[in-house]
């Protein structure tokens, strides 16, 4: 989906501040939000790709204002509500009670976790079909605009590149995030010249990105 998360090449974000002493968690709650986020996939019966898509589905203002682990917390809540592990509004009601407000907590809904076939743990898979592309092939990223989850960022769409490596095949996030199956595919590292991505005036550099086979066509 075209969302706030797809940040590559967007402008107006200001300078990068590097703090070499950045702690792992600046506040205790961030560590707990991280752990709850890491557990949310298992508790909701979803998966890593659904978690990433959950982050993308947050309101753009929530995505930015909540900060990194605030976003994980909101995403954990979203997946748990989607799967009926928690009622809509349950976290809000409990939080308000913790703050001393007299609010009623919503009734527990029926658990409704997604049902789909997994081909094993992790994301990498062995597949029988040979790779469609070879190293050195000229390809073009498809100009597709999907409404759901995808790992092809907008800044690559329609652009011409070259296959530079064949990586292990993996489950297709576009499918697993929506629980329709795994549809494992070959994955390639594809090289794009900066001038192809950002115009003739761009400083000459190279961008390498990992793309799934169906994200591309031969040119």
């Amino acid at each position, binding site marked *: 989906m075209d969302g706030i998360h797809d940040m590559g*090449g967007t402008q107006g974000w200001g300078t990068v501040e590097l703090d070499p002493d950045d702690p792992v968690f600046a506040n205790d709650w961030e560590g707990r939000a991280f752990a709850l986020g890491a557990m949310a996939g298992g508790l909701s019966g979803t998966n890593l790709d659904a978690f990433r898509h959950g982050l993308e589905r947050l309101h753009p*203002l929530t995505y930015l204002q909540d900060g990194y682990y605030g976003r994980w917390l909101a995403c954990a809540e979203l997946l748990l509500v989607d799967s009926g592990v928690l009622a809509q509004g349950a976290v809000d009601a409990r939080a308000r009670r913790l703050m001393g407000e007299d609010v009623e907590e919503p009734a527990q809904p029926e658990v409704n976790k997604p049902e789909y076939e997994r081909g094993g743990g992790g994301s990498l898979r062995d597949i029988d079909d040979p790779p469609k592309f070879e190293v050195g092939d000229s390809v073009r990223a498809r100009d597709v605009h999907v409404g759901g989850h995808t790992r092809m960022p907008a800044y690559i769409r329609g652009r011409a590149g070259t296959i530079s490596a064949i990586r292990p095949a993996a489950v297709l996030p576009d499918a697993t995030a929506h629980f329709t199956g795994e549809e494992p595919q070959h994955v390639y590292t594809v090289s794009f010249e900066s001038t192809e991505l950002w115009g003739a005036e761009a400083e000459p550099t190279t961008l390498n990105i990992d793309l799934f086979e169906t994200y591309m066509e031969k040119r």
Partner: protein
Amino acid sequence: MTAIPQKRPPAPIRTEALEALLTDRGLVTAEAIDGLINRFVNDVGPMNGAKVVAKAWTDPEYKARLMADGTAAVGELGFAGPQGEHIVVVENDEKAHNVVVCTLCSCYPWPLLGLPPNWYKDPAYRSRIVREPRAVLAEMGLELDQDVAITVWDSSAENRYFILPQRPDGTDGLGEDELAALVTREAMVGVAKVHAPA
């Protein structure tokens, strides 16, 4: 009209609420949460990656294995796990500089570097490093000569890229542990170089 999110209780309270709801139901325990936090605060972090770099600098056969099959070579040192399914090592030198980003989220080689630092997750880094890497690196304190070729790696699938920085001059007499102490998180993502002790 676009809905604006309503004001919610603050994140620390909502975190406490979510944990309480799940522990009430017996779905999580405080101990499991503490264990996960402890792992990423104390056991997994850039010190793991630094050991890999120091070994590669001092053991040419290890370096050859590392460049050929990163996952297996870091596994020799006991580094494996989530966000490390397929590790690809890329070497920086005087003429070629590589730097890693995840423009879509925050993909990062957890077993080698732990959880990503703030700058890596920041919209400014995620948006700009793919578009104007030389300027962003300079802003972060790394001025590269014009003849250095820059390659940016956007980790958009499950491959995790790990930078083998260039060993600095003046470190010939140092052992693996001393070398590892020089290697920073930033150098292993490609936004800094490793410097010899002053």
